[in-house]
C-alpha cells in the first residue's frame, strides 16, 4: 500500500520514537481484551503484517468483505433497530411489541422465559418464580396467538430467540391463521444450541440431539422459508461470560463451522443455506477493538466458507449479523451513565457494519426495562443514524492504521483458537472436554481481578464513586399474577381441547422422533392440536434423554 522508500522513512522515525523514554499514564496500554496497544500506528505497522489492500481489505461488498457485506451499506439501507424484549405474559409483551413498533423500532425481537426455554410448563415446580421474568412465557399455541395479536406477521421481521421446533412451529401456524404463507415470512430463529449451552448453561437434551433439532429447523426453513434466517450463531452470550474479543470471534465461528458441517451432512448444499446464515455479536466497551472484531470476523468467515466449505455463491460468504450492546458492562451504580455507554457501544457496532442492532436500556443492570428507558435506547440508535453523519460513507475507519492493525491482530488470534478447536475435534468436542469453558472462565477471572486492582476502571463502581447515591429510578415491577394467569391458562386449555387429537399428535411426534425423522411437520401438527410445550418436550426427552452433565464446571482450577 505504501512504497518502499516511504516505509523506510516511517520505520526510521518509529524506531527513534520507540527508543525515547516518555512518561505515560500507565506502564502498558491494552485493549479491554488484553491486546497491547502502541502509542501510535503507522503504515509500517500494516506493512509489517503484510496487509494487502486488495486481498485483505478490498471494497465493501467484495470478498473477503472486511469492509462490509454490501457495496452501499447504510447509504442504501440503515440497520434495523431490533430491540430485544419479552416479559410478563403474552398480553404484556404484545403491548410492548406494539409500543416499540410505534416508537420506530420495526424489528421484532422476542425472548422467552426460562421455563419455556427449558421446555417446561409454567406449572412445573422448577418454574416457580421464573415465569415471565427474562422473557415471554409460552405454554401453547394460544400464547403465541396472544403474543402477536394484531401484528401482521407477513409484514414484519421477527427474531425469535429460541431454538428447537415448537415455538417456530407456533409462529408459522399463527402466521398461517393470519393468512400468510411460510415463504412470505421474514425473520430469524436464534437456534444456536451450542451458544445457549456454553454461555447460558441452557441444556435440556444432550448436545448432539440439540444439534439434530437445529438441523431439522434449518432443513425445513431452507425448503419453505426463503426469506427467513433459520439460525443466528451467537457470540454475544459467551462474551458476556467474560471471554476476549478474539475468543468471541473464534468460539462463535467454530460454532458456525460445526453447524455448517451438520447441515452439509444432512444433505443440504452449502449455497442453499449459506446465504441464510446469520450471526449475533456483542458490542462491548473498547470502541476500536469491537470495530476491528467485526471486520476480522467477516474476513475470517468469508475465507472459511470459500476455502473450507467451497461455497460458490458470494452471499454464502457474507457474514451478516445482529449486534446487542453488552448487558454485563452496565452498572447498577449511577444508572444514567449506562445511556452513554450504550451510545458508544452502538456506535462501534454501526462503524463495524451491523445489519441490525439492539441497544440496552439504562436500567437493565437492575431489572427489565421500563417503556421510558427502552424508548431512549431506540432514540439513541435513531440519533446515531440521523444526526452523526457516520452513515454517509461505508467503513469510515477502513485504512486507519490502528484499526487495520487491530483487525489483523484479532484475526490472527482468533484463527489460532479456531485451529486449536479443530484439533480437539470441533466445537462440541471442545465443549464436552471443557476447553472452551476453561478459557472463558480464565479470561473472566483475570478481568475481574484487574477491575478489583483498579487497573480497569468502571466509572461509578471503582472510580468516581458516589456515596449514598440512590437515584430513584422507576423500575419495572414484575408481579406474580403472571404465574397464576399462565397456570390458569394451561388448565383452561387442557379442558377445552380435544384430548384424543392431542394424544394422536403426540404419538405421531414420538414415532417420528424414534425414527429420527425431521420433527418440524409432526411438531406443527401437535402445535395445531394445542399440545402444550411441555408435552412436546416430554416426547423429545423420551427420545433423547435429559442432559445431565455439568461441564460448565470446567474453568475453576
Amino acid at each position, binding site marked *: 500500500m505504501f512504497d518502499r522508500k516511504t516505509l523506510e522513512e516511517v520505520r526510521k522515525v518509529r524506531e527513534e520514537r520507540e527508543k525515547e523514554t516518555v512518561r505515560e499514564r500507565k506502564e502498558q496500554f491494552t485493549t479491554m481484551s488484553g491486546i497491547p496497544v502502541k502509542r501510535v500506528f503507522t503504515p509500517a505497522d500494516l506493512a509489517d503484517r503484510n496487509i494487502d489492500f486488495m486481498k485483505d481489505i478490498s471494497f465493501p461488498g467484495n470478498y473477503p468483505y472486511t469492509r462490509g457485506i454490501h457495496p452501499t451499506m447504510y447509504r442504501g439501507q440503515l440497520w434495523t433497530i431490533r430491540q430485544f424484549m419479552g416479559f410478563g405474559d403474552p398480553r404484556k409483551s404484545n403491548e410492548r411489541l406494539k409500543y416499540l413498533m410505534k416508537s420506530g423500532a420495526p424489528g421484532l425481537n422476542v425472548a422467552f422465559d426460562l421455563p419455556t426455554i427449558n421446555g417446561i410448563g409454567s406449572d412445573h415446580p422448577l418454574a416457580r418464580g421464573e415465569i415471565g421474568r427474562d422473557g415471554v412465557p409460552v405454554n401453547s399455541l394460544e400464547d403465541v396467538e396472544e403474543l402477536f395479536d394484531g401484528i401482521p406477521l407477513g409484514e414484519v421481521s421477527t427474531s425469535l430467540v429460541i431454538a428447537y421446533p415448537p415455538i417456530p412451529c407456533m409462529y408459522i401456524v399463527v402466521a398461517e391463521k393470519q393468512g400468510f404463507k411460510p415463504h412470505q415470512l421474514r425473520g430469524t430463529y436464534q437456534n444456536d444450541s451450542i451458544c445457549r449451552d456454553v454461555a447460558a448453561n441452557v441444556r435440556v437434551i444432550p448436545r448432539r440431539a440439540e444439534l439434530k433439532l437445529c438441523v431439522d429447523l434449518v432443513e425445513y426453513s431452507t425448503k419453505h422459508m426463503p426469506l427467513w434466517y433459520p439460525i443466528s450463531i451467537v457470540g454475544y452470550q459467551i462474551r458476556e461470560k467474560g471471554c476476549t474479543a478474539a475468543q468471541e470471534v473464534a468460539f462463535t465461528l467454530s460454532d458456525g463451522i460445526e453447524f455448517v458441517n451438520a447441515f452439509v451432512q444432512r444433505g443440504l448444499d452449502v449455497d442453499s443455506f449459506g446465504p441464510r446464515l446469520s450471526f449475533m455479536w456483542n458490542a462491548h466497551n473498547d470502541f476500536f477493538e469491537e470495530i476491528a472484531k467485526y471486520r476480522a470476523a467477516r474476513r475470517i468467515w468469508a475465507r472459511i466458507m470459500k476455502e473450507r466449505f467451497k461455497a460458490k455463491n458470494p452471499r454464502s460468504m457474507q457474514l451478516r449479523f445482529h449486534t446487542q450492546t453488552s448487558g454485563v458492562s452496565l452498572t447498577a451504580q449511577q444508572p444514567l451513565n449506562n445511556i452513554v455507554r450504550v451510545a458508544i457501544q452502538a456506535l462501534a457496532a454501526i462503524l463495524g457494519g451491523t445489519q441490525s442492532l439492539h441497544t440496552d436500556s439504562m436500567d437493565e443492570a437492575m431489572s427489565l426495562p421500563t417503556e421510558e428507558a427502552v424508548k431512549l435506547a431506540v432514540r439513541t440508535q435513531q440519533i446515531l443514524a440521523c444526526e452523526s453523519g457516520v452513515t454517509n460513507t461505508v467503513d469510515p475507519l477502513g485504512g486507519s492504521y490502528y484499526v487495520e492493525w487491530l483487525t489483523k491482530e484479532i484475526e490472527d488470534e482468533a484463527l489460532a483458537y479456531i485451529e486449536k478447536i479443530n484439533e480437539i475435534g470441533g466445537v462440541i468436542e471442545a465443549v464436552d*472436554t*471443557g476447553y472452551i469453558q476453561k478459557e472463558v472462565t480464565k479470561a473472566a477471572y483475570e478481568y475481574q481481578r484487574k477491575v478489583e486492582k483498579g487497573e480497569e476502571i468502571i466509572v461509578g463502581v471503582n472510580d468516581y464513586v458516589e456515596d449514598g447515591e440512590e437515584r430513584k429510578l422507576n423500575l419495572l415491577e414484575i408481579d406474580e399474577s403472571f404465574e397464576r394467569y399462565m397456570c390458569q391458562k394451561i388448565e383452561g386449555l387442557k379442558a377445552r381441547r380435544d384430548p384424543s387429537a392431542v394424544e394422536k399428535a403426540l404419538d405421531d411426534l414420538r414415532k417420528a422422533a424414534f425414527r429420527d425423522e425431521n420433527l418440524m411437520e409432526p411438531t406443527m401438527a401437535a402445535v395445531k392440536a394445542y399440545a402444550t410445550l411441555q408435552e412436546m418436550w416430554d416426547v423429545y426427552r423420551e427420545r433423547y*434423554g435429559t*442432559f*445431565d*452433565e*455439568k461441564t460448565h*464446571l470446567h474453568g*475453576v*482450577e
Partner: protein
Amino acid sequence: MKENNSVEDIVKRIRAGHVRSIAKLITLVENHDPIAVSVIKHIYPDCGKAHLVGVTGPPGVGKSSLIAALVREFRKGEKSVGVLAVDPSSPFSGGAFLGDRARMVELSGDQDVFIRSLASRGMAGGLSGAVNDAADILDVFGKEIVLIETVGAGQSEVDIAKIAHTVLVVLMPGYGDQIQAMKAGMMEIADILVVNKADKEGADATVTDLFFVQALSSRKPEIWSVPVLKTSALRGEGIGELVESISNHYKFIKERDLLTQKNRERRTKEFLDILTQQIRNEFMDQMKEDQKLRHWVQKIGDLELDPYSASEQVIAMIREARQRKIGEGTSPKPEAAQDS
C-alpha cells in the same frame, strides 16, 4: 455449636439418623476435634454393616455422573446410600473446589441419600484423612452402601483400596496408554473395571485392551476375576449390570472370608495411621513444653545425632514401657526422651 453436645447425645442422634448431627460430626472429624474422637470410640463397635465402594480413575472420565447413576440404581433396590466425594485441596491456598455434588443434582430431595464433599486437606494420599471416620459414621447411620469418590491421580488410588471393600476403576474410551494405567497401579487395585462414556468411539477396543492388560496383572485369578464393564452414565446404560457386579463382588469376598481379612487390613492400617499421627503430635507437643527435648532434637539438625539413632532411642523406650504393661486396652504414652 449445638446445645446438647455431650458425646452421649451426639451418639444418640447419630443412631436416630439425625442428618444435621451427622453432618456436624463429620465436620468435627475433619477438624480433628476431640469430641469427634470420643464419638467414634462409642460407635466403633457398631460398624461393619456398610459395603464400602471406592470409585477412582483419572479426571474427566465421568466418575461423579457414574456415581449419580449408581445411586439412582441402588435406590431402585431401596438401599440407603451414602456418598463421600473427595477433591484435592490447593497446596497454595489450602482451599478447595468441591464440585462433584454439582453432577448429582437430581439426587437431592431423597432422604435416603446422604452426600458429603470432602477436601483432601493436604493428606499425602490425596484421600481425606476423614474418609475412614466419615465412612464409619455413615455406616452406623444406617447406610448400606457408601460410595467413595477419589481424586484419581497419583497415590490416592492405592489408598482407596485399603479402605473400600470393592474398588471401581473408571476409565473412558481411548484413554491413552493402558501402560500408563498399569504404572499408576490402577490395574492392581481394581475389583471392577468400568469403561464409561461407552457411547464414544473406541469403547470396545478399550474393553479389549483392558482384558488383555488384566491378564498380565499379578493378581491371582482364583481370588476374583475382574470384570470389564461398559457404561454410559448419561444414557443410563450398563448401570444395572455394574450394580450387579458390585453386589457379586461383595458376596464373593464375604463367602470366602476375604471380607473379614479386608476389614482387618483396613482397621490395622487405620490404627497405624492414627498411631503414627498421634505419636508425632505427642512428640511435637512435648517438644513445645520441654526445652531439654528440643535441645535433644536440635542435635539432629547440628549433625551431632543422626535421625535413625534418635528414633531408635524413642522406640527403645516404647519397648521398655510395653514390657512393663500392655495388652489391657490402653497403652501408656511414651515418655519424653531424656538426654542420651
